[in-house]
């Protein structure tokens, strides 16, 4: 009986990972992907890029362990139709390449703010307007978002920025000029500020 059992349990002919990739292309054609994502290498480490039909919804600094929690959060908060489908992120990848090679000072890709609300979103929208090479303060962002005394809340809002780099929360420093904090870690903040010429090398 073992011989028949062995034959029945043999691995299937073909490779379902290739089928899964073809599936992603077909799903994109049929407009069934609510969130397309890809992971892209960059000078500040691998970046998770996730886009809805409206625009870039999340840019995540990635350690392997984080990918699952990013995607699970997107599935829970935006839509569970999440698929690895790099094509939608091509414009974002191109702009990031140009930014990291010093050829781009402003991002033009559309953004999807679904992961933020209220005060947080107002702080981040104000942050998005700080020009390349310039810096601002937590206090000023709090004031632009409509409550100049909510400095700590502004700090929290920036720490929760779902689209760092493109929404340049690295350009926000403490009032005295010290670096303050950064969700991706201070070395990344320093790197970005140096790249933009806002910090002495």
């Amino acid at each position: 009986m073992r011989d028949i059992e062995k034959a029945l349990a043999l691995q299937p002919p073909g490779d379902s990972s290739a089928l899964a990739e073809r599936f992603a292309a077909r799903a994109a054609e049929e407009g069934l992907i609510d969130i397309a994502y890809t992971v892209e290498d960059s000078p500040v480490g691998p970046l998770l890029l996730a886009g809805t039909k409206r625009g870039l919804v999340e840019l995540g600094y990635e350690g392997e362990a984080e990918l699952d929690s990013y995607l699970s959060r997107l599935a829970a908060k935006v839509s569970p139709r999440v698929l690895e489908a790099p094509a939608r992120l091509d414009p974002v990848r191109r702009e990031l390449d140009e930014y990291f090679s010093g050829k781009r000072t402003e991002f033009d890709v559309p953004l999807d703010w679904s992961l933020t609300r209220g005060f947080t979103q107002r702080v981040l929208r104000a942050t998005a307007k700080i020009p390349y090479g310039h810096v601002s303060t937590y206090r000023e962002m709090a004031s632009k978002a409509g409550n100049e005394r909510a400095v700590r809340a502004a700090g929290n809002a920036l720490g929760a920025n779902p689209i760092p780099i493109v929404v340049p929360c690295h350009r926000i420093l403490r009032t005295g000029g010290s670096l303050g904090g950064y969700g991706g870690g201070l070395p990344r903040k320093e790197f970005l500020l140096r790249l933009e010429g806002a910090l002495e090398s």
Partner: protein
Amino acid sequence: MNGRADAPLIWRRPTRILGCPAHISAMRSVSQTVSLPPFQAFLDAQRETVFRYLVAMIGPNDAEDVFQETFISALRAYPRLRPDSNLRAWALTIANRKAIDFVRSRNRRPLPVEEVPEVPVHDGRPSESGDVWAAARDLPASQREALLYRFAADLPYSDVAAALGTSEEAARQRVSEGIRQLRKAMA
């Protein structure tokens, strides 16, 4: 598959969770209620099982197309799925329905006499498993289903029993009777 189309597999809710994705716990830290995993995780966790099931049920040549139909259909319905559903059972239910649809339409399609459609195409793939499954398609439905769940979907006997709506003892009997019949057929 003949006669099978009128008696599609009905999944009785299995008694324990199959293929529970590892990141369910990560999702709980995001929100208190359990959410569906990202579709990519569902696809990665179920694609191998679904493909094996389809290859066993309709053969390797047609399994690839039905695989696409299965997951497109799953993706359409996914946001409406209850988060506590048995994802493997759900995926196999769709695969089974799509395979039955496929066989029905294949049987309706008029074929030119010159064509000999049932001869397997040799495309360098291992054929031993394919031969056994081709023979399994002639078994009585109850035995074939038991073999599909046990070997193609690789379910443990407790879940084969749940899927068939029988006791584990009866599931084991159907599987071993199926294997006995296959040995006879292939001798």
